[in-house]
């Protein structure tokens, strides 16, 4: 009988258009990136200096690190709203550990990351095993982690008195690059390898793309999702470590609302909220857009309330453009 013909676009389109299609990223991402940089460069001469750019990278480190973990979660078609509170809880635990137990920078960092991973594990178990929508679970842990943080600190800041800790996670430099940037590069490199060259990456994409088909292909989708939540929590723990080192102290209310920046970065970066789609370099660009926006708006002296409004608006626009 008649042969079937696959519906495939013939390669007649221009290279630029094809590249944009094949990269799986919304054009919106690149346009907004370019527009932001040109706008701020024109608006303030300080913006495009090397020191300010490094400054942006340093300030964006926290968002970028957490965005990697949240991207894992969103690729599996779940969401993690708890990263801001997890950051605070882990940072506070590291600081308390150094103050009250052993004043060792490495053990403190391990404590912070372990606490973050535990919050992630709780998220994972509740969302995956007990099947509460992750939106609600992580909204709950957002509140719980913040509450515990306030409880253990008695709502006052915890001082960190360990020079190695300050140096390794915040103030040290290597070939002129600040420690938080180096940590970010390390995290990004690992996330990149895992997502694009790892077995786990394939499992994440398949689980988010069609959970039933992934299960019927022999993928343990529950484990995949749980691990994604744990990674997200652990990276929030690392971010908490950096926060504690930066200020030589940590306030229990730190990181409130930072999940907005993180999720905005991930969605702007072209990761589909419906799962199964997204690239690491998109998330890097998304994080930088958020960083540049924060930095530029501060340089321009925009009121913080306006900054919040702009960021919220941007998320909505990004989602509108990203939806298929």
């Amino acid at each position, binding site marked *: *009988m*008649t*042969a*079937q*013909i*696959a*519906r*495939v676009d013939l390669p007649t389109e221009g290279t630029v258009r094809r590249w944009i299609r094949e990269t799986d990223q919304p054009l919106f991402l690149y346009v907004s990136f370019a527009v932001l940089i040109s706008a701020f460069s024109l608006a303030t001469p300080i913006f495009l200096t090397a020191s300010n750019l490094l400054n942006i990278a340093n300030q964006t480190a926290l968002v970028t690190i957490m965005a990697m973990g949240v991207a894992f979660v969103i690729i599996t078609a779940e969401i993690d709203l708890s990263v801001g509170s997890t950051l605070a809880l882990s940072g506070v635990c590291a600081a308390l550990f150094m103050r009250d137990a052993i004043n060792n920078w490495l053990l403190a960092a391990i404590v912070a990351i372990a606490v973050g991973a535990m919050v992630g594990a709780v998220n994972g178990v509740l969302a995956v095993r007990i099947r509460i929508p992750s939106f609600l679970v992580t909204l709950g842990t957002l509140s719980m982690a913040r509450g515990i943080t306030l409880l253990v600190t008695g709502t006052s800041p915890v001082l960190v008195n360990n020079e190695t800790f300050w140096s390794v996670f915040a103030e040290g430099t290597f070939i002129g690059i600040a420690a938080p940037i180096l940590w970010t590069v390390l995290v990004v490199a690992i996330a990149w*390898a*895992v997502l694009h*060259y*790892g*077995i*786990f*990456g*394939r*499992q994440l*994409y*398949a689980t988010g*793309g*069609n959970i*039933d*088909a*992934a*299960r*019927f*292909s*022999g*993928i*343990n989708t529950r484990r995949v999702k749980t691990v994604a939540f744990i990674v997200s929590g652990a990276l929030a723990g690392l971010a908490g470590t950096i926060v504690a080192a930066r200020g030589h102290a940590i306030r229990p209310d730190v990181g409130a609302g930072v999940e907005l920046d993180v999720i905005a970065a991930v969605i702007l970066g072209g990761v589909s909220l419906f799962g*199964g*789609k997204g690239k690491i370099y998109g998330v890097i660009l998304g994080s930088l857009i958020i960083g540049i926006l924060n930095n530029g708006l501060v340089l321009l002296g925009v009121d913080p309330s306006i900054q919040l409004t702009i960021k919220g608006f941007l998320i909505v626009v990004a989602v509108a453009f990203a939806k*298929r």
Partner: protein
Amino acid sequence: MCPNNRSEFQAMGAQVTESEPLISMTGIVKRFGTVVALRGVDFELMPGEVHGLLGQNGAGKTTLIKVLAGIEAADAGEFRIAGERVHLSGVADSKARGISVVHQSLSLVPTLTVADNIFLGSESVRAGHLLDRRRMEVRAAEVLEHYGIPLRPSQPVSTLTFAYRQLLEIAKALAADSRVLILDEPTSSLTKAEEPILFGAVREVSRRGIGVIYVSHRLSEIMELTDRVTVFRDGANVGSFGTSQTSIPELVESIVGSRLDKLDTNRAGSRTEGDPKPEVLSLRDVHSPGVHGACLAVAAGDVVGLVGTTGSGRTEILETIFGARPIRRGFVTYRGESFAPRSIHDAIAKGIKLVPEDRHRWGLVLGHSIERNIAMANLPRWRRWRFLFRGDESRSGAEGVRQRLKIKAPSIDVRVEDLSGGNQQKVVIGKWLDGGTELLLLDEPTAGVDVGARADIYRIILQLADEGKAVVVSSSDYDELLQLCSSFVFIADGRVSSPIDRADVVDERDLHRRLEEARKEFSR
């Protein structure tokens, strides 16, 4: 009762044939992407007629109903309602023109009365916002009496059994001035004892000039109830019959058809000779959700056909073997060892693979490429140093699958959502082509697949069997089963008959007869 009713219809017949058809469709075409669901279908419904629609899954019945109900618009063809040419703009438009699809009591509010439900959304109102309860009850009683539906207006719906709730759905449609009722598998959720209630109401309604389209897989029902039957196959109307002039065997033949591209169906005979093949799988009295005491034996090189209607438990048996349903009781032996799959992962690791019935839901990630879909099922094979994925090997593996299965796509990077149904199905089968498959389970392997791709799929299934794999095929397509299988078992209510050899089955009709026998056996 039944013949009496028919003669009465025929008495009306003279006047009916003179009147205009309620629905007249000519040359209706409907495409979904590259799949042609309806290829130039003609269909006619007269007032006062009960018109049966028959056909296998994917034959086009559902699509035709969707076109009638305004859910889908036809791509070509002429559609007339009561003589007027129409282009339905949606479900509301279809309803407004008097066409109602009777749902299986999903739209009823159990806490309200019969009258309340009949006028739900179009309540009689008095003095502003007060409900005029009496008026509604009177009008409901009028509708019920006019169409001879045995319900009382003041009855609460929660006290009604399933069959009467269906009558209420019918009454609801009639109260909204419907002239055409579409009943889609209305008896599928009724007990045997409840069926006459529905049949009686359908006859009463049609006697009053309403046209009824009655979709069912149950031929005995069609014979008993309908005046005319239209049979669909592969998206085409293959014939309309006066019910009194046709017979069940004739209908079966037009439902399953006879295909021109027959494969060598004699292979079964040669297969049964020679050395006994090692047994790969055996089930003894296995119970799981939907499976009630299944026995089954499959040897290497066997293609065992599961014969049964939709909902008979065919899918459930396959899913149980595949580890997707927990085994509650019974014994499973797999390759000489006792085996109870704890999970799908477990079954796959042991070489048991399933090609599921609904490829979009269970088989594919539509937005991902061919390579990604095939790799998803073969991740353990492409693992390196515990964590890394061997991308190059996965690509060459997928390329090999593409060539072997003749998947028509320019590269393995094409998204599967851009492929035709047949090529998508090949990708699903391709997931399991390599990688230690010992037992391949196929559930409706060619549903919605074109004839060309179908032949490719048959070829690969028979090749796998010749390589010594054990294969189980579940299908509602008798011709397919006869072409592929070396033996058959019959399935009804989650139970399995003893096997019969392919050589002992004459044709589709014989297969159907044996299924009916097995069903009677089980219901005893």
